[in-house]
Structure formats: C-alpha cells, structure tokens
C-alpha cells in the first residue's frame, strides 16, 4: 500500500482539514488498533518528513490530473477543495458560502501592509498608507484577520500586529511565504540616487535621470 494513497483516502474522507501531524497520528492509531490489519502495521512509525513529501506529491498528482478539484494546503492543513471555476454550480448545491462581507479597499491595503511587514506598529502602517488607520485596524482585529503579536522596542512600546491563521484561511494561503511577491514586499528597498540632493534645484522639473536612476540598476517598475 502506497503511503500517498492512504493519506489521500484519509483526506478524502475527513470531515475537516488535517495537518501532517494529525495524519501521522491516524497512521499510528490504525497500526496500533487492537484488531489492526496487517497492512496497517508498516506505517506505525512513519516519519513526518515522509508524510509531507507524500502530501506534496499527492498535491502535484492532482494538479497534473487537472480535474474539478485539487488538494490544497491552507494554513498547514490539507484538504480537498473544488476549483474556483465551478463556483456557480456549487453555489446552486450548497448555497453561497457563509463568508463575511468583502474587505474594503482601505481594509485590504492595511491588511497587505501588516501581512508583508509583520510585526508592524500602527504608526508604521500609517506612515506607509499616509492616512490614519484606526477604524480599519479595528475592523481587521474584530474580524480576526490580524492580532497584536507583541510590543515594539521603541519609545512608548507600542503594540505590534501580525496576521492570524484565519487570514491564511480567508485567502486560501498555505503560509505567509505564499503571499504574492513576498520576498520583494517584505523589505522594499528603494535605492536613493546619490546625486539627488545636489540636484539642479533651479529647475522646476528635476531631470529625469536624477530621480530615475538608482545606481546602475533599473528602477523598480511601478506596475
């Protein structure tokens, strides 16, 4: 019996998403059951790494099969889900998903900043957005998408914020590493052209190269 198919059958039948650890415990339980089937015994001490590898392989299998569903990993929990393009029919089947109303543009912007920059203080978020974020932060906290994760070692020791597991679930992300363009946005370094300060200030319009050229590199495209 191949490990990945056992895991598949478990995920296929489970009433809730399962972690690799939970799957391992189920394999152990099946091997240790009083009337354990002989074929269950070899999986008594299967390693976490083997389970994770099998799950990755399984997810790849299903991606390749390109059916109407796939094996998704959201917040480190594995689950079979349908592909989004079948939404219209599934809505007919189970009704629209019970989800809170969609986030507003300010809500999404604030959430994006917190997601990429966590842990981050409210002041830092406001600096990036250029506006106060009190109301928006309140909403995000109430919806459980962000939470206080500690205090910054600066004057006043303000709260720092980070995203929650619900955030990952809400957006269907496996982990924060799966955030689009995560590497780039975690630390945006906008290189300052060295010559800028001594620009020809008499000009009403700065010569483009002064603002545009960051060292030898091409400026980061804005779109």
């Amino acid at each position: 019996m191949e490990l990945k198919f056992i895991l598949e059958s478990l995920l296929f039948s489970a009433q809730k998403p399962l972690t690799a650890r939970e799957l391992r415990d189920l394999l152990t339980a099946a091997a240790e059951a009083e009337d354990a089937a002989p074929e269950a015994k070899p999986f008594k001490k299967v390693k976490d790494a083997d389970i994770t590898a099998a799950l990755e392989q399984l997810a790849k299998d299903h991606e390749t099969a390109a059916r109407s569903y796939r094996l998704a990993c959201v917040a480190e929990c594995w689950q079979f889900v349908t592909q989004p393009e079948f939404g219209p029919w599934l809505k007919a089947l189970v009704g629209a998903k019970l989800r809170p109303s969609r986030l507003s543009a300010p809500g999404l912007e604030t959430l994006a900043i917190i997601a990429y920059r966590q842990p981050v203080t409210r002041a830092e978020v406001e600096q990036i957005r250029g506006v106060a974020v009190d109301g928006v932060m309140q909403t995000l906290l109430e919806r459980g998408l962000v939470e206080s994760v500690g205090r910054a070692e600066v004057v006043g020791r303000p709260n720092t914020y980070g995203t929650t597991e619900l955030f990952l679930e809400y957006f269907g992300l496996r982990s924060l590493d799966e955030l689009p363009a995560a590497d780039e946005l975690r630390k945006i370094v906008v290189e300052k052209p060295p010559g800028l300060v001594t620009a020809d200030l008499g000009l009403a319009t700065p010569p483009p190269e002064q603002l545009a050229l960051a060292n030898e590199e091409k400026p980061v495209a804005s779109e």
Partner: protein
Amino acid sequence: MAEYKVKFEVFEGPLDLLLYLIRKEEVDIYEVNLTKLASQFIEYIEMMRVFDLEIAGEFLVMASTLMYIKSRELLPVDQQIVVEGEEEGEDPRWELIRQLVEYKKFKDAAARLQTLEATQENVFPRIPIKPEIEPDTRPKLEVSIFDLLGAVNNILKRIAATRDDGRNIFDDKWTVSEKIEQIIGVLKARENVKFSELFADATSRSEVVCTFLALLELIRLKQLVCRQNDAFDEIEIGRAPVVVAPPVSETAVAATPEAESARHS
C-alpha cells in the same frame, strides 16, 4: 458636484490621489514632474473646498509638503530650509517618491489579495458524506451473507440430488450449539477451513442447516471471519483476529432449546 464627491470618496488618502494624478499623466513615478504634480494636487484640494467636502487632515499635510517642495525648487541650494525633524541633506522630493513607490507596491499587493478573496468565495471544501453511509466500510465480513447463502444452497442442492427421501431428515438430532462447538473445535486444530469441508460429512439437510446457522452465529459473534481470495474462489473460514473469551456456547445453547438433549455423533 455629486460627480466630484463620488470621485473624492474613491481616494483613500493623499498618496492615493497622487498615484491617481501620476497615472493620469501616464508617467513612471520616478519620472514625474513633481512641481506639476503639486499644482494638480492643490487644485484638487481647492476643488474639495469649493464643493464643501470634508478634507481629511492628511490631505492638508500632503498639500503643505508639496508646496514646500515646489517652493524649495525655486531657491538656490544654500538657501534651502531644513524642516524640523528632517535629516540634514534629506531631499523631500526623494522622500515623497520613495513613499509613493512603497505605497504603490502595497496597493498592488492589496489588489492581489482582493483577487484571492474573490477566488476563495468560489472554492468549496469537500465535506464528505459521513463514513457510515459508505458501503465499503462495512464490517469485516469479507464474504457477504449472500455469498454464504449461495454456497450453502449449492450444498443443499447436492444433498437433495443424492437423497430422494428428503423427508426422513427430520429424524436428525443435530443442534446449532453442537455445530458451533464442532466448528470451534475444527478451528482450534487448524488455522482455517474451507466452507465445503465443514459440510462434507453432512448427511442430511437439517445437519447442513444447523451447520450453516452455527456458522452465521459465530460470524455474528465475531469468532470467525470468512474470506475469499477471488470473487469465485471457494470461501474460507478462519478464526477472527481477536478472539474474545467465548460466551459463544452459552448464547447459542440458550437460543436452541433442544441443545441439552442433543447428542454428538
């Protein structure tokens, strides 16, 4: 007027308005004419004032920053003022560009999150039917009652074919409980036994029926399991993996009134 109001409400804040103005100019943030941008921005603020719209404080702060940038560009380098809190040599133009670039990236990230949000509304988890409805997680009766019934029927037919005087079978005194003990005895001696072997010595229909009922009872009590290697293979009977201390005989005897008077052959 209503049109403007709608428009202004769309802007999240001053940075948003600036990005909007830059996009309208169709230039890269790095190449924007800040002086022109400042004029346009202030024009919009004036417009908001004219239409008596509430102007958030941040817009006014940005307006003054832009005014400062604009005025500063009119001065020679050595006459430039340094704003309080601003590092020596910090260029407010650069600071603004940096802020716009950073903000733009997060705005784009927010748009991607919005796409994910909408997608997730159409992603439905599989919440399977509760397992007891699944036909294939049935008890470990690897051979169904129907297979057994079919098998015993074949044996009955064979007996009927070899014995025309079917009626005299009623003289037989076999009981189910005796057969239960017999089967247990056979399986103590060996790991498993073929279905037909159990019936091989049967001399009458009633003996076959008793043996069969004994078999069913032992299966019910999880003392035995029946297996078949292939769909049409002969059924094999073996001890169940876990042998519970057998209350078997008692149960069976109780169910069979004539048990006490039964005789062994």
